[in-house]
């Protein structure tokens, strides 16, 4: 029988028992939807990690003071991670090449009659290079493919130097919007503004920036804020020594784990952290590398994926058995029809094809419905997983293939049974 004839036969047979076919499909629908959602979670985790790769280089370690839940609130633990800790780390830990440090504080900035409440970030002198290399922002209208330099960001001003950072110089660099708010369009360079109760000289204005990630643009305005040497911020804007956030650059990315150990023992020594009775250390700092983020993301995604994989397997097997069951019933119901077909010249493979195609038709339809359901369920999976889920394009053909395979595997036995019927018995069947 030609494929068109076979397809017509299968379609007609399924459509005469629509409800039965739809109920039979359910298992496959759920199974396939689970496969889609499962792969979307894995893919989302991968995408999230890739996004993190951009901001955190392979040779970088983030260090911050450890926070713990206390009385229902997140509280810093142990000793403050200080600016001095960072400076000393640079000079004593062999694998450390560079330490970027920052603190941030909300301040009132004033020039003349204009006052704005903004975020001040105290940084080291290489922060401007950090902005360039992060890839998070670009000058407005910049061609995304071309690279830009620190000077491209600063126009006719300049950023503060390492010497100014060491000296705690009273200088600052303004964000584009903040400069507009304070100076109403006049040139701010060389002017002195008040930052809380500290005077500081404006030495540069960062050009207008936009987020490179279009979807991110509404979230935060990179043009509001001001940058000052970290030492200046610590000395003049804080009463007590604040905790700093560090990004440590390691000399060799391959030795990053070794560097972590060196930094850990250095900080334990500096913060006088002793082994407790159980042989553990109560560290008061947290270190994060790209691999750590990768591990966390994958861990979360893996647990949930495993659950979905189990669900997919169970649904697909149950769905397959359902198809097999319905096909057995169908073969029995149509025994006489099979006899007639054999009598008019149908070969065994014609009968096998007919029933196999019917079960594939059911499972493939279930597969298509499952793909749609799975895509619709992706946001739900993401929410339950508290993570990201992103449709993995390859999962669509894969899931469809699985559905077809289910139809073949579970349809084969009923189809073979149909084909092996004795034509005489089949014709006589009531």
């Amino acid at each position: 029988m030609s494929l068109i004839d076979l397809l017509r036969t299968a379609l007609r047979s399924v459509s005469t028992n629509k409800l039965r076919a739809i109920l039979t499909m359910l298992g496959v629908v759920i199974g396939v939807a689970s496969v889609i959602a499962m792969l979307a979670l894995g893919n989302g985790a991968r995408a999230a990690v890739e996004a993190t790769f951009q901001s955190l280089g392979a040779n970088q370690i983030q260090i911050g003071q450890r926070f713990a839940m206390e009385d229902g609130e997140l509280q810093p633990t142990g000793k403050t991670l200080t600016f001095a800790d960072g400076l000393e780390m640079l000079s004593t830990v062999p694998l450390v090449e560079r330490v970027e440090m920052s603190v941030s504080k909300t301040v009132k900035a004033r020039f003349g009659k204009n006052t704005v409440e903004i975020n001040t970030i105290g940084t080291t002198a290489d922060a401007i290079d950090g902005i360039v290399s992060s890839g998070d922002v670009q000058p407005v209208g910049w061609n995304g493919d071309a690279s830009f330099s620190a000077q491209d960001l600063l126009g006719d001003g300049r950023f503060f130097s390492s010497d100014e950072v060491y000296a705690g110089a009273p200088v600052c660099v303004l964000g584009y919007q903040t400069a507009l708010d304070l100076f109403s369009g006049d040139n701010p360079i060389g002017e002195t503004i008040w930052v809380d109760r500290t005077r500081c000289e404006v030495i540069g204005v960062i050009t207008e920036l936009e987020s490179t990630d279009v979807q991110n643009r509404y979230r935060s305005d990179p043009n509001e804020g001001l940058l000052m040497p970290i030492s200046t911020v610590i000395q003049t804007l804080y009463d007590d020594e604040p905790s700093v956030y560090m990004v440590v650059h390691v000399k060799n990315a391959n030795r990053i784990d070794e560097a972590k150990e060196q930094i850990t023992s250095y900080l334990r020594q500096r913060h006088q952290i002793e082994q407790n009775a159980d042989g553990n250390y109560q560290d008061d700092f947290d270190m994060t590398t790209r691999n750590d983020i990768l591990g966390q993301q994958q861990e979360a995604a893996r647990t949930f994926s495993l659950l979905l994989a189990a669900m997919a397997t169970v649904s697909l097997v149950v769905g397959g058995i359902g198809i097999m069951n319905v096909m057995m019933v169908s073969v029995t119901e149509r025994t006489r029809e099979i006899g007639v077909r054999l009598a008019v010249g149908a070969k065994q493979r014609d009968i096998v094809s007919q029933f196999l195609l019917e079960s594939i038709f059911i499972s493939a339809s279930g597969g298509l419905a499952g793909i749609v359901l799975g895509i619709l369920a992706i946001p739900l999976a993401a929410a339950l997983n508290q993570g990201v889920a992103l449709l993995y394009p390859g999962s669509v053909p894969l899931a469809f293939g699985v559905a077809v395979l289910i139809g073949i595997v579970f349809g084969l036995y009923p189809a073979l049974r149909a084909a092996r019927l004795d034509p005489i018995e089949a014709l006589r069947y009531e």
Partner: protein
Amino acid sequence: MSEPVIRTEKLTRAYSMGASVITALREADLTVHPGEFIALMGASGSGKSTLLNLLGLLDRATSGEYLLEGTPVSSLRRDELADLRGRRIGFIFQNFNLLPRLAAWENVALPLAYRKGEFGVQDQLSRARETLSRVQLEHRAEHNPMELSGGERQRVAIARALITQPAVILADEPTGNLDSKTGIEIMHLLKELNEEGRTIIIVTHDLNVARNASRIYHMLDGVLNESEWAHVAN
């Protein structure tokens, strides 16, 4: 004389039932020439269905030989038998055996559909329509069997048996499920077809039906005998 359509020699079919063996057909010798109209009579259980199944290639003989248009069939594989059956044999059943989900023309075209690559859908349709017009049912081509009367159904079934231009048409009690008036019409049609040259073997226990045949065979306990009776009846 031309080559016989059907020739059987000592055709035997035995079934084993546990320890005992039941011989449903015993050394039947039958020769049917083109254009003949044979009636096969006998009580139920006499073996006529067994013989018909063997002639229709639906069953295999235990011993003896059967030549269909000169071809010995005992050595053919199942699919070869199916192919030969589809091309050279037309079946007409007592209960019509039409497929309920198919339109009349699709039922008629079914034997063509199983000849891989030989007939496209359009080809099937036009041939089915032609054949339906031979049984005066062209106007019912799109109807489902459920929408047809008994006589119409049997005419659709006859068209299905005719469409392949088979060597022989095997009719198993074709009027058994019809009222007598319709039965007579169907017999008329079969007789017409025979006069056009179709070879027909009909199983019946209705003497009025058998009367249309050129020769009548009787079956009794698995033994086939030609009856002189037909000549008397005619």
